[in-house]
């Protein structure tokens, strides 16, 4: 066996921590595709409890997380993309007056100043459609959250089994 140089040790982050990066205001989707995305996000936004519920057969999956806004200004989530899925939409499940369940896309989701916005089962969620490659429980899905100020926050969402309960 020949001796090998050890690669620099990476610090392990807790699983729920988003992958943060440098701020790059005004970045366009196109430039993000080409270069490693600038992991910015609006000041004061933190992500808690990110996860994806795995479903078989490449079915659309839901992504969940809580956005915490420790800043004094409202922030607004306006969309998301993912290198792992061809399409990501902001969705909300809701109950109709007659008690039936439905779901629809939304274009904006406010994260109040000094408050939080939950994306959780039965309510707001990220609708992840058309996997670009096979995804299974134990994997981590990457999602870039787009905010109204143009900033983007890259988040890693651990993939949990279908039967995961909160």
């Amino acid at each position, binding site marked *: 066996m020949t001796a090998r140089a050890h690669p620099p040790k990476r610090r392990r982050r807790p699983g729920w921590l988003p992958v943060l990066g440098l701020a790059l205001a005004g970045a366009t989707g196109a430039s993000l595709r080409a270069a490693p995305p600038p992991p910015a996000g609006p000041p004061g936004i933190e992500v808690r409890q990110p996860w994806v*519920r*795995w*479903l*078989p*057969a490449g*079915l*659309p*999956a*839901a992504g969940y997380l809580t956005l915490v806004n420790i800043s004094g200004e409202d922030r607004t989530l306006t969309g998301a993309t993912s290198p792992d899925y061809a*399409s990501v939409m902001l*969705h909300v*499940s809701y*109950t*109709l007056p*007659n*008690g*039936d*369940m*439905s*779901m*629809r896309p939304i274009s904006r989701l406010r994260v109040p100043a000094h408050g939080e916005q939950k994306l959780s*089962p*039965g309510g707001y*969620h990220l*609708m*992840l*459609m058309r996997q670009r490659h096979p995804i299974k429980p134990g994997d981590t899905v990457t999602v870039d959250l787009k905010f109204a100020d143009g900033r983007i926050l890259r988040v890693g969402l651990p993939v949990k*089994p*279908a*039967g*995961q*309960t909160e």
Partner: protein
Amino acid sequence: MTPPSSAVARLPWFRALALSLLLLAGGCFHRSLHWDLTDISGALPNLQFDLATKDRPHFTEADLRGKVVLMYFGYMHCPDVCPLTMARLGEAVRSLGKDADRVRILFISVDPKRDTPALLHAYAQAFSPEAIGATSSPEGIRDLAKLYRVAYQAEAPDPDGNYVVTHSKGVYVFDAAGRVRLLGSDSDSAQAFEHDLRQLLQSP
């Protein structure tokens, strides 16, 4: 009921029987069961269906005779509420331990256009080994939904052809004799389902 003749009423065995019946009735009142879900006993027809599963083109209530059945209508392209409900049902059944085998979760797709029996099998099994995925022809689903007063409606497709199906969120619970007993939904916790399942299994 005709009153017993006085001769019969005077017999010691009859008095003993009458007394024990009274005590039994009193006992029932005292331990009237509390259900976490909604008691809908008698409000809907007994369990009856003729559906297609991965292995059977005609899977019917006879195949689930003796099992407590949790019947839920949904569709596989529903990433949020249907899996949430199925996950809770799966957890409730799992928590029954060895009694889990006395219960079946029947997931019926109201989207037979996209949801094939083979896919439904994989879907149901992802939540519980006791879960069965089934569907039917559009007409078959329409008739079954009507029988159990389940509403569903495929919404207009988006440019990619994806569509949402609006549907009732009820979970119907049938006892081992196939009688409808309880109604739950995604608003009920796994613990609520577990509590009522244990009760149904203990005192049918």
